[in-house]
């Protein structure tokens, strides 16, 4: 009786959260956009990356290839379907011909052309995650989960030297430090192992060390997780799998060491070329291509609505391999009955 009364009362309240619908969009470099009614595999999309052949690599429940010409997907079979969710989830080789991912106690390389699969690290009982291949394809950085908190992915850093097949652990022996690393990557320009730590509330740092674990130092506390532009000139926040960012957006000129506060950035991703990034600013409903070095900014997309539906957000910004445009997910507000009547 009471539940029924509550329901009646709640129905009197006219606030209904807007229903949204994700649509794949391809935006060419001249700003012309193509909205696609994408296959169902996009409904549970966790990450997507553009491939050299123009297609897209998707991670939803599994890996899929999205064929842009036919608007179809094909599943990429993996020997273990339990792909680890923590950190970066997976990474693509610099040539775009292979993916590196982790399953419980193993790290894999999957060739996207031959579809051959190679187990790179196999260690029973260990949980590895967040693989990152250096841009010179020499080292595969990854993390081993140590924390007992299942809600958080934290651990200590390691890497695999792909030339010698040697796995190097960068654990310190300090229980707190070895249970605080949340992200890892390699700055191949300076042969530095970069890693993020969260030591407590508001105590988060981007750190660096030599490849042998020596000279550990905090790089900055201005950003939590870092990434470089393709030319290595700028240090940026790491775009998460969806490419979203929150709070103030800062980037650093690595030469002058000046941290610059940029425009409000709601989501972004880093191009494979120069100092280019792509970002979406919801306040202006615009998607920009921006060169951090020249400050040259180009509006690629400036619609507040498409097909009579308002844009709520733009996520999964995925620059195309040759930088001739991008793919992204447009989250559109589905009109209510009231909207339609108006």
């Amino acid at each position, binding site marked *: 009786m009471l539940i029924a009364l509550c329901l009646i*009362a709640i129905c009197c309240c006219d606030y209904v959260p807007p229903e949204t619908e994700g649509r794949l969009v391809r935006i060419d470099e001249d700003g012309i956009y193509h909205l696609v009614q994408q296959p169902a595999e996009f409904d549970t999309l966790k990450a997507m990356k553009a491939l050299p052949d123009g297609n897209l690599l998707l991670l939803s429940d599994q890996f899929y290839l999205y064929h842009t010409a036919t608007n179809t997907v094909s599943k990429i079979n993996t020997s273990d379907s339990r792909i680890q969710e923590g950190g970066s989830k997976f990474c693509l080789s610099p040539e775009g011909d292979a993916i590196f991912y982790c399953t419980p106690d193993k790290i894999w390389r999957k060739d996207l052309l031959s579809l051959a699969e190679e187990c790179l690290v196999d260690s029973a009982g260990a949980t590895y995650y967040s693989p990152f291949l250096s841009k010179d394809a020499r080292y595969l950085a990854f993390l081993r989960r140590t924390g007992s908190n299942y809600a958080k992915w934290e651990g200590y850093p390691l890497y695999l030297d792909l030339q010698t097949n040697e796995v190097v652990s960068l654990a310190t022996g300090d229980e707190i430090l070895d249970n605080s690393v949340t992200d890892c990557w390699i700055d191949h320009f300076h042969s530095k192992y970069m890693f993020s730590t969260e030591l407590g509330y508001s105590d988060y740092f981007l750190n*660096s060390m030599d490849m042998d674990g020596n000279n550990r130092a905090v*790089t*900055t*506390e201005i950003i939590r997780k870092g990434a470089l532009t393709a030319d290595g000139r700028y240090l940026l926040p790491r775009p998460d799998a969806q490419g979203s960012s929150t709070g103030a957006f*800062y980037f650093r000129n690595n030469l002058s*060491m*000046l941290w610059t506060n940029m425009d409000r950035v709601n989501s972004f991703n880093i191009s494979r070329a120069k100092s280019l990034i792509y970002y979406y600013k919801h306040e202006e409903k615009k998607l920009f291509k921006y060169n951090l070095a020249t400050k040259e900014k180009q509006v690629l997309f400036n619609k507040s609505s498409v097909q009579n539906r308002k844009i709520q957000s733009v996520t999964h910004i995925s620059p195309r391999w040759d930088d001739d445009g991008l793919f992204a997910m447009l989250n559109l507000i589905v009109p209510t009955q009231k909207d339609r009547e108006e």
Partner: protein
Amino acid sequence: MLKNCFLCLTVIIALTFTACDKDHEEPQTSISIYMEIDSAGDVNIYDIPVMDRYLFGYPAWISDDYLLYSKAKLYRGSLDSYDYQQLLPDNIDCFGYGICHSVARQKIWFCNSDGIWSCNFAGGDITFVSPTPIKEMQLSSHGNFLIGYRIDRSQSLCLVDLATGIMEEQSTSHSVHKAFYNEDLQLISYLTYVRETENSFQVRVRSKDGSSELIAIDFGNISIRNFQVSASGRYVAGMASENGSISYPLYIHDLQTGETNDLGLVRSFQMLAQGDQMIFLPADGRYFKVSKYDFDTGGITDLHSGYLHDYRYYYLYKLIVREDGEKIRIYGWGKLEIEDRRIL
């Protein structure tokens, strides 16, 4: 039963409508206040609190376009810009030890696990000073020494001669939290936590060679978070709260005369870098005002009433004073005076 159900229905519907009534705007009972007070008492109010959104670490306000930040790294910031100039390279940090600086010498001293270092205000001229890192490092009254305690042995006082880099260490019977060295009087004053039958925070004063020591202030078992020295090094003051809504007694000790005074309940205080003066926020009931205290004369000058239109300061978030003492910036919360009266 029917009566009860009807009552429930009425209450639920009333509550739901109240929650859903979006058109009715309640007057704001509290607002964030960010203001700058200059030495003449003139006040500037800032609508967008830059310091609230982008303040991190422990900034020293050197000049209007020059803030010095430290937490894990050193940065130079500005009140007019959101940008930061990073001063230290990626392979050197100062995480966990704290820094000190001297405007006269244009120098910053910082520590990391490798030891004590210095650099200039532009981050250049990075110089290794001493191999033993010390914590809560403070510059002595004439800037010739650094004093602190060892991170691996907190029952210690370490005095580093900046001319030679030589460190003299002496032990204490209880752990040190922060220390100052007065070169003229050759006295070390330090905040220590005494664990005995009755635990207490104390300020103790000892001679440079450690041969004599006395208890200057006994705070009892209240955790002391704010312990500072005056510009000349003659006066030390301490209280329980750095910032916040609760007021605590502020004790002052004169190292020259050996006298200790209680200045009453205050919210926070900040020593000025020049002249033996401090800015403090004396408690006035639930609220506070802004005053200046002169240690030599004991005179108090009121700088601001704490009123801002219909609002009165009731919670302090941050207080920073410009190096020349001419400007104070305060960020906190103001409560609607009328609203408060209605409640009372």
